[in-house]
């Protein structure tokens, strides 16, 4: 651990990585809480995988047509918003077949990404970092972008907190109170989309869902209000990402996978301890 702290002082790429992890954790804790309580984990997963389509398309256009400004990150944000709106509308309209359609979109988005990446000439090592994350590639510019998107997510959540709370708790009642439930739902999905892209830079599109839900699942055991769940999730997510980066640096293992394994272990430990405590109380 002291080795990591020393390295952190020395290397700016590690500072950026930890900084990005902390910034992403804020959006992750807030949006993750909505995703879990509104029970749209599956939809968030689908958005995450569609992001790969945007990354691939942007990379292709960038390399083949020379559009330098269309970075994979820009493509990812664009694809995430587009897929969030499409998936949102599908889930609002196709109530009966919702899971089928969303499951299909999940794979289609990913397939498009794989095709574009394969068609892009040159060295395609990048694909792995999109799938499994590469937090050590974060630049100063990325950090500013992440901070900006963070601010957007925090701002919207703070302003619409009560409305979102009412919708997640009881959608029908919220509708009776005159809330445009469908509009809020789409806004929530767009916030989810932005958060998914932020997290994907750290852990990759394949593992986003775990980072979005595990801190909330742990927080849910202890916290009694949604606000408390959010705060605790932010703290937990920060701990997991920082510990994951530290451990991956010292052991030379991939950071994304390390973060997820730490979060998973913490979740299992929480559930096990709770089960033991409940049993001892009953005795």
């Amino acid at each position, binding site marked *: 651990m002291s080795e990591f702290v020393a390295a952190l002082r020395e290397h700016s790429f590690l500072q950026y990585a930890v900084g990005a992890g902390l910034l992403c954790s804020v959006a992750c804790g807030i949006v993750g809480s909505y995703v879990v309580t509104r029970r749209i984990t599956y939809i968030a997963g689908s958005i995450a995988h569609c992001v790969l389509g945007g990354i691939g398309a942007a990379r292709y256009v960038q390399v083949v047509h020379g559009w330098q400004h269309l970075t994979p990150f820009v493509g990812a944000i664009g694809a995430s918003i587009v897929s969030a709106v499409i998936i949102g509308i599908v889930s609002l309209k196709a109530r009966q077949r919702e899971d089928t359609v969303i499951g299909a979109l999940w794979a289609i988005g990913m397939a498009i990404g794989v095709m574009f990446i394969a068609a892009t000439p040159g060295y395609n090592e990048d694909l792995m970092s999109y799938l499994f994350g590469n937090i050590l590639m974060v630049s100063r510019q990325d950090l500013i972008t992440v901070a900006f998107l963070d601010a957007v997510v925090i701002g919207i959540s703070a302003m619409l907190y009560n409305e979102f*709370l*009412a919708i*997640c*708790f009881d959608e029908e*009642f919220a509708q009776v*109170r*005159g809330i445009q439930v469908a509009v809020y739902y789409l806004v929530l999905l767009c916030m989810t989309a932005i958060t998914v892209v932020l997290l994907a830079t750290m852990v990759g599109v394949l593992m986003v869902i775990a980072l979005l839900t595990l801190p909330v699942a742990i927080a849910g055991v202890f916290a*009694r*209000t949604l606000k408390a769940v959010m705060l605790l999730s932010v703290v937990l997510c920060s701990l997991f990402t920082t510990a994951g980066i530290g451990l991956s640096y010292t052991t030379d293992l991939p950071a994304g996978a390390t973060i997820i394994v730490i979060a998973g272990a913490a979740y299992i430990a929480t559930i096990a301890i709770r089960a033991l405590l409940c049993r001892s109380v009953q005795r």
Partner: protein
Amino acid sequence: MDRKPVIEIQRLSFAYNGFTVLEDVNLTIVDREFICVVGPNGGGKTTLLKLVLGLLRPLRGSVRVFQEPPDNVRHRIGYVPQHAYIDPLFPVTALDVARMGRIRKGRRLGPFNKKDTNAAMNALHTMGLDAFARVPFAALSGGQRQRVLIARALAGDPELLLLDEPTTSLDLHVENQFYETLREINRRLTVVVVSHDVGLVTPFATSVVCVKRHVVIHPTSELSGDKIAELYGTDMLLVRHDHRCSAGGHECRNL
């Protein structure tokens, strides 16, 4: 007494995917009535409530609430849904839930103000839940949760309260108490309650509305075992357990 109509339904029909649920419904409910809606499962009770709320559109005919289309006056209606579908482990306190009733179209976005919190606390007080305001919803009993949901509806200062099967998860003793509370509320506003339990509600109700594709309204004084048997089908065995409450019932009937 000449009272203002609260709900006016005229020649209304409604169908789900071509299957007729309600047909040629005519119904007028006036201010301060206490209406009990009864009928078999799938008879259209909940559908009728949702039409009044404007959540569903009639196939034919019209629904007017406070002499306007339901969409315009929805914020004046307090709605208590069947609480079966609400996640009991959701991280909220009783006060959080009650305050949800303060949300309305055109509300300034952001945190609730003092007035909202006071209204929610008053609603919890009406339901006898002052001491539970900060208690997690998950830690409450079934009956307490149901009362929190009513407090949520009351927090918005409604003039009409619609309740869908509010007593499904309550035991008989609590249920009786529950209807006493509703009668208190009824002094201030019109109450429409969907219930499977005709015997228990009728002592409190001014009229019973029977819904089984068609809708018939009976003043409670006219309601007999025959009518109920007719409504539910002849196989229905009616267990009367309302004798104890009949004194209170007479009082209500003459409203």
